[in-house]
């Protein structure tokens, strides 16, 4: 964990109410594993809001990193208003990220809504390591999907919408189809409802795929001090920020 001032390079609306902000911050961008996160203050003076917010690393490029977020409150509205040269305080990287396999495999990445944020960095690293990658993203409608150009070229990108306005119709967990048996490993990030139905689907024929999930809880501190972000698992109570945010799917949703 390093504390650093992150300098805004660019800020772009990528779809609906969702933004990608790039920062220059050599310390925050180094030694990050996919699925890790950082805590970013969403105010100029760290007064209001008082606590930093947790954001997944969306992409990393040398001394620069990007976060992807939906504007849902004061903090994210502040971030969306930043322009080049603005400075925010942050600390990271934090938590435990995905464990990508050592040998070449077929990786299925599942994203529900803004849960797509960590999946692009994960896909970039997986492709670089020689894995075959299919990424599925689910949203209510086409307007809520990350445009295909944001994924590495070698990733097969499948979209799933509840209203059928783009790609497959339904939810990600209903649209797994042929991709589920194809996968040697499965990684997911999205709402708990998605994890619950993923566990239903994979309970009988997906245990060997050792599905890993990135969870989200309220995290005032992000580094294991406040105990606010408890996750109740089969192995006992864990802290999302420190023991996670990566958990084995079946430990949390048995």
């Amino acid at each position, binding site marked *: *964990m390093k*504390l650093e001032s992150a300098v805004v390079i660019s800020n772009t609306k990528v779809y609906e109410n969702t933004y990608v902000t790039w920062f220059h911050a050599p310390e925050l961008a180094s030694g990050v594993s996919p699925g890790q996160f950082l805590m970013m*203050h969403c105010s100029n003076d*760290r*007064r*209001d*809001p*008082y*606590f*930093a917010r947790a954001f997944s690393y969306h992409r990393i490029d040398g001394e620069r990193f990007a976060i992807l977020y939906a504007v849902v409150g004061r903090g994210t509205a502040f971030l969306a208003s930043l322009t080049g040269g603005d400075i925010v305080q942050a*600390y990271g990287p934090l938590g435990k990220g995905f464990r990508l396999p050592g040998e070449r495999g077929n990786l299925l990445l599942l994203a529900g809504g803004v849960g797509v944020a960590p999946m692009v960095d994960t896909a970039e690293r997986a492709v670089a390591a020689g894995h075959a990658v299919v990424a599925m993203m689910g949203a209510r409608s086409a307007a809520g999907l990350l445009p295909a150009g944001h994924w590495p070229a070698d990733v097969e990108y499948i979209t799933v919408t509840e209203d059928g306005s783009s790609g497959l119709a339904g939810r990600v967990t209903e649209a797994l189809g042929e991709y589920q048996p194809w996968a040697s490993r499965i990684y997911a990030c999205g709402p708990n409802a998605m994890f619950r139905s993923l566990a239903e689907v994979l309970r009988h024929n997906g245990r060997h795929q050792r599905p890993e999930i990135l969870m989200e*809880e*309220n995290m*005032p*501190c992000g*580094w*294991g*001090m*406040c*105990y*606010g*972000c*408890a996750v*109740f698992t089969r192995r*006992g*109570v864990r802290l999302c920020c*420190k023991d996670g945010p990566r958990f084995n799917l079946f430990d949390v949703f048995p």
Partner: protein
Amino acid sequence: MQPNLQVDLAPGRKRDLVLKNPVMPASGTFSWGFDFAARFDIEALGAVVSKGITRFPRQGNQQPRVAETPMGMLNSIGLQSVGLDAVIDDLAPQWSRWGVPVIANVAADTVAEFGEMARALDGLPGIAALELNISCPNVDAGGIEIGQDPVASGRATEAAVRNTDLPVIVKLTPNVTDPVALARACEDAGASAICAINTVLGLAIDTKRRRPVLPRARGGLSGPAIKPIALRMVYDVARAVNVPVIGCGGIESGEDAIEFLMAGATAVQVGTATFANPRALLDVIEGIEAWLVREDVADVHEIIGCAQPQPV
């Protein structure tokens, strides 16, 4: 000249409690110390204060456990704890290797259990003092219903003091009309020091669900929002007792800490600020030192209680 920052929180007791500077974390905002030690110099702190130690391991409360509020937060963690045996077997041996005193925060369910736990921790290498948690608002037993009653608070203090040579600090709740009566009862029962304050009872409502945010409804308010309440209690308690007072509540800078020292605190605890700024404890230590240098104060004792009507 570097100003003297060293303080003793148990002068004249069987065991002293000398801190190289008057700054320590607040219990429950620092876990068991290891996360900090892995990233910062833990020996820069005046002392370490453990998370609340319960007799048996506790899972803590269900989600949601926290709610952010203006300049602070409500928590209802519910004393998630590894339990006494794990502290004795696993944690204290590691603490004993740190060049900083570790104060064990003891959260018992009953007066008798405070005595049993004090005896179990007495003489254990790695533990320099006990802090009795009679003021947790987020559990059903042992916390606040002892801590809101001067008689019960005195009995819990006495039970602990009788069973250990370690200095016993008692941490008070602000959720009473007369904190001075509590402080006096604890002092009379043998407390080496008084810590004020634990969290302030509060409530947040989720308007969408039309229910309180926290499952137990009430939570403990902490952060800069409660600093004036804490300062007032320290000011009142420090004048009423002869033992050292540890100030706690909303401290996030050297300037904040100086205010508490002037109100009569001999040391301070930094809690919620650590969540917003991982370096908060170090910032407070450096801030106190910088203030003393700037004001040409050679010894921190020169300002302790200086804002009292008559210096304490």
